[in-house]
């Protein structure tokens, strides 16, 4: 049994189907990369797995460790071992240091778990208020690490940030994997993958559907040659 199983998942936002029939399996400890253009439904899919209200699974099912997630609220899913690093968020009215303390208490983790991620100057500030793009991404990854997840959903940790921030994001993702987490990583460009020790499988999502799966370098080449729309029309060539 896979850790995460998506079976014909359709997700609607404000009545519109954004994700349309996704099938995907992620095993324990595996790192999967989900590529796709803006608006293809990648972030929507992650939010639906996390159970965020407004991202309704209208068809199909999401199973985690064999359990249908349908009736579980976000905090229950988090306690089951699912954590999410958000792409962007409005300021949250809690200081970063308070949230770190509370997460350590909740999950038995330690601030030492997130050392080296460059958070020192942010601790006394309200979460995400006035943070730069890179700071927000680092903080999201750090909070995800503190949750000691079995499955980490990472929404574009490499978009809109400088190379140093991408390097730190790569370091944080490697740390998650070292600690046994499975990772579903959403990225536009795949650039963060250059800093990862291992990627097990990659998928391309276009217009709410997974149109190709395979090895990341091969899929990235296909995207460069055919574009996302070309891949959606013809699929990926077999990888030799």
């Amino acid at each position, binding site marked *: 049994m896979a850790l995460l199983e998506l079976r014909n998942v359709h997700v609607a936002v404000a009545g519109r189907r954004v994700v349309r029939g996704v099938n995907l399996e992620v095993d324990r400890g595996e790192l999967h990369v989900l590529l796709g253009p803006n608006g293809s439904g990648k972030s929507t899919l992650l939010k639906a797995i996390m159970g965020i209200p407004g991202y309704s699974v209208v068809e199909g099912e999401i199973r985690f460790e064999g359990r249908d997630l349908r009736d579980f609220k976000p905090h229950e899913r988090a306690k089951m071992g699912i954590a999410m690093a958000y792409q962007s*968020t409005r300021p*949250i009215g809690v200081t970063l240091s308070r949230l770190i303390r509370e997460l350590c208490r909740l999950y038995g983790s330690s601030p030492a778990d997130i050392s080296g991620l460059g958070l020192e100057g942010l601790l006394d500030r309200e979460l995400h208020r006035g943070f730069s793009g890179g700071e927000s991404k680092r903080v999201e990854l750090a909070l995800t690490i503190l949750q000691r997840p079995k499955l980490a959903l990472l929404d574009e940790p490499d978009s809109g940030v400088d190379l140093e921030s991408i390097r730190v994001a790569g370091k944080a993702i490697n740390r998650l994997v070292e600690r046994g987490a499975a990772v579903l990583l959403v990225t536009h460009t795949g650039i963060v993958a250059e800093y990862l020790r291992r990627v097990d499988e990659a998928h391309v999502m276009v217009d709410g559907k997974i149109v190709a799966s395979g090895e990341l370098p091969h899929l990235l080449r296909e995207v460069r040659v055919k574009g996302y729309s070309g891949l959606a029309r013809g699929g990926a060539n077999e990888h030799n």
Partner: protein
Amino acid sequence: MSIIDELARAGGTALYLQRNYDVLRRVVADSLRRRGLILEPLSEAVEKRSWVRKLLWRALPKEEGVKPYGAFLYVPPGLRIQAPLTFCFVVSEAEQLVHNVIVIDEGSDVLVTSACASTKRGEAHEGYTEVYLRRGARLNYVMIHSWMRETRVTAKTGVEVGEEGSFTQFYTCLKSPSSLTSDSRALLRQEATALLSTLYVASPSSSTTISSTIILAGEGSGGEVLARAVAVKGATLRLPTRIEARAPGSRGHIECRGLQLSPDSRIETTPALYSLRGGSQLTHEAAIGKISEEELYYLMSRGFTEEEATSLLVRGFLETGIRGLPEVMKPQVDAILSILARKAVG
């Protein structure tokens, strides 16, 4: 160890404890007594010292019928005390009327904590506190109160801050009563500063009015009013605030925020700025809102229940209203924030 001994120990340097009208404990460290610090019942001070008699009701409008049944604190010039001097008033039966006078002499720098509480049989507490800071004196005045629901509370504080003096007031209630009226007003001389801050969580179906006024009477004086208030089910909270600039080069700011945790609660903020002379700078910001669903679900997705997430957000909201507190108070204030946040979500 009795609670009184614990308070004495926590008070560190001086403690004045009064239950109803009985002075139960009056302790002053020998080193401070030798340097001229006085802590005694106001009735004694008025009898022994004519200058204290002359001070009475200068910083507050006179209240007929209020007798000098409270504490008198005098801190001589040039004394700097890190540990708190503590006043404690408990009303355990009928009504308690208290009149306190605090005089901090030139260049002294002290922290005074005021702990007031009631038991179920305490029907009413009325407190009148006059504070006089002489030239260059600094006072951190921390009021941490805890009232039974049944007790009616009225508190008035009048402050005169002398030239280049600095007054910081922090007011909070661990348990708020069903009816509370508090009125603090500070008059600032040349180059003096004041910060009046309030953290308040109104209990269900309570009625609360917390007024804060700063009068910038001296050239170059500066004052700030800071309030964070949370209203739960059926609570009504009024936060009238006022800064009046009477001197050029003065500056004032009001920052008042309310958080409604229930649709049937009510919050009124009425910031008022008066500039009576040119050359002053006055600003205000006021906001009333509720907890956003986005923030709530963000925290829930990190594993907190709805109650825990709300409590964290209330704590964060209150925390932004804390400024200017001395280091020594930070652990207590941290604990207070946790208590208030828990109370807010029931």
